[in-house]
């Protein structure tokens, strides 16, 4: 059966990259004796799919990965067993059984919510609330990204579903996180700063992913990846 596991990643562990986090969980699952299924072949590997890769330096309260399990006990027991194997800063916060026809975590991802906080000693050089209002009032906010091969232009108004300033140093946003249209939260801040001729200083802001979302079954809006499936 398919299980979806939710975890948070904080503190020093935010400096561990995505591939290493995958390896970290493979080992943690072995240590905690979760009855995971393996692929067949000469070098069997655990059947596991991660939702959306998290950038190095970003914290998260809503990360997900799916595994195929041969047997389960209770979510409570399995969460406790995994948590006993976590490094400081990493916590398993949920586990559900997915319906057999559920799309895997990676293919499910459509949106992600982020909280961005200016760190101590830094503050935006403009009014955050005004910048957010300006963003919301515009028809179009073009963001250009230089990649190795070409220049990509994107209207962020189509990719930012929600944006609000909680106070003058905290902003919250819900953005496109699908594989085709993923938007980095820094891109939004870059545009906000750009309204006032300022630049975006990645070092000034702590980004926290609050949750990861997929399309709601009724086709209206999103639901959290953690709401798919059943408790057990």
């Amino acid at each position: 059966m398919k299980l979806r596991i939710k975890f948070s990643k904080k503190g020093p562990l935010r400096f561990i990259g995505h591939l290493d986090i995958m390896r970290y969980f493979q080992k943690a699952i072995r240590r905690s004796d979760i009855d995971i299924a393996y692929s067949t072949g000469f070098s069997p590997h655990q059947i596991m799919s991660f939702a959306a890769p998290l950038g190095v330096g970003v914290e998260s309260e809503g990360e997900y990965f799916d595994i195929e399990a041969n047997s389960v006990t209770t979510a409570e027991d399995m969460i406790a067993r995994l948590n006993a194997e976590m490094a400081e800063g990493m916590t398993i916060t949920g586990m559900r059984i997915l319906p057999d026809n559920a799309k895997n975590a990676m293919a499910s991802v459509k949106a992600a919510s982020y909280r961005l906080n200016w760190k101590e000693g830094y503050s935006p050089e403009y009014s955050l609330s005004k910048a957010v209002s300006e963003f919301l009032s515009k028809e179009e906010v073009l963001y250009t990204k230089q990649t190795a091969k070409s220049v990509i232009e994107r209207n962020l108004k189509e990719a930012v579903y929600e944006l609000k300033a909680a106070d003058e140093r905290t902003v919250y946003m819900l953005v496109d996180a699908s594989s085709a249209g993923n938007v980095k939260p820094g891109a939004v801040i870059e545009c906000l700063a750009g309204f006032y001729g300022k630049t975006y200083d990645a070092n000034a802001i702590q980004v926290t992913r609050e949750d990861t979302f997929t399309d709601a079954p009724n086709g209206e809006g999103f639901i959290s990846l953690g709401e798919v499936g059943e408790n057990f």
Partner: protein
Amino acid sequence: MRQLALSDEILMKIEKPARYIGHEINSIVKDRNAVDVRFCMCFPDVYEIGMSHLGIQILYDMFNSFEDTWCERVYSPWPDLDAIMREEKIPLFALESQEPVKNMDFLGITLQYEMCYTNILQILDLAGIPFINEERTWEDPIVIGGGPCAYNPEPIAPFFDLFYIGEGETQYRALLDLYKKDRAAGVSRDEFLRHATNIPGIYAPACYEVSYDEQGIISEFKPKYADVPAKVRKEVETNLSDTYYPVKPVIPFIKSTQDRLVLEIQRGCTRGCRFCQAGQLYRPIRERDVEVLKQYAKELIENTGHEEISLSSLSSSDYSQLEELLLFLIDECSKKKINISLPSLRIDAFSLDIMSKIQDVKKTSLTFAPEAGTQRMRNVINKGLTEEVILDGAKLAFEGGWNKVKLYFMLGLPLETDEDIAGIGALCNEIAKVYYETVPKEKRNGRVQITASTSFFIPKPFTPFQWAPMNSQADFREKAYKTRQGIISQLNQKSIKYNWHDTDVSVLEGVFARGDRRIAKVILDAYKSGCVFDAWNEYFHYDKWLEAFDKNGLSIEFYNERERSTDEILPWDFIDIGVTKAFLKREWERAQKGEVTPNCKEKCQGCGAAVYGSGKFCFE
């Protein structure tokens, strides 16, 4: 959560920040106020290399099992972080506490290869510890070295307060106790170092003086004080089945170079290859009990979740319970979907059967280490591997479906002739011939792939070849060229690939291996002119090294190319490894006559290591 020593800005800017943040699974954090001794263990190379080393994990486990001690780790900051630390004046810090290394009581540095010597200076420099032992105060940790290169510590002697000669399991407790006692009594740092020399295996270089004759050869090497012993005897853990073993090793977040569990099955070797330093240093042979190893394997798997396990020893085929251990591992690991990475085993029916059970025959290659191209040369080096054994093994393997073979050779061995070099190509050709004769056309999975690699022979201390001259770079290049010519003249040359090593690094390694105390100045000057990470091609600057030799009036030729007289006082003569100089001399003479010395298992050769009274074959 512990505060990190590096800011977010720095961590986001450098390559692989996970090298510096600690917090790994099974790493140990203690209450700094509840311990008496802070020990920082250093592997002077980048994190991924250092984390692959079993020895540090053994000592880390041992130190942390002492209630009064907290042992942490530090590795060489990569040049990107090194530059930032210098610019922003960030002191070198230990991974666990993220506190400066300078605040520790001990800084232990493992010396696994000679080319890490400038990295030792980088560590001291970034930590803010004076380079030279005599300039240090109680404000500085006691800097102690250990590991294989400590068997000739002289080229780096001035950088260390102490060296621990031998296996770490036995005397560190005594050293820490002495430290606590002496600190409580308020003795001077120099006095403490002098007291430490009375602990077996401990060498304090500043307590000895060396004089040289007009040629530069050592004329006298003696303790400065009456209470300091003239000889330092290597320490040996006599019971490997009842000692420390890190069954909860630290698991790095990033992939280390050897990303697998390690089961050390035995120490020592009975083969007596004359070029091999480890084969002499780690005598007598000692096995770990197979039941103990099975238990370790189970616990290691449970405690780490690693997906691969490997065996470690100098010659795993010689472990008496190998079959039992491997069958157990195959069973245990298949249940848990864990790969077994086999060490290079002697190729025979048994090992091929095991390999075919756990490896994909099509992907893996077989390894032979004939080390020399002719039987005459193999007799000189006492490598008991005959052409017949190699060809029989290859035949069996080809029948089993393998078609990749790796062969290792050395160039520049003592008494080597052109015929021996030509023999390398000829042997490769014979193996290819066996393939085409053994495997019918329709069953061939492409051409047989033979890879021959040569390294340049470097004479090492405590081997029968410690007196032998080493080849010059010009000799080495010419020999590599001749080897290549020898290979391309073969009928099956299209099936043979040839690799050889760089010569510059080998030449320096030669000097560091057999050098004396005067070399320390060369190392310090080279470091000051920018040499660091010399084991890494992209950072190796041979020209700067040559300048450093010139500046100090020392010549590479003196250390490498001269044949030493057996009467000469060698820089490492003050160390007693059990194996006697008389035995090594006898072996050097036998080598010159091309005489083979049998494996200790067949007949005791009276090397002297039996003095440790523990070796299985020394005793039987």
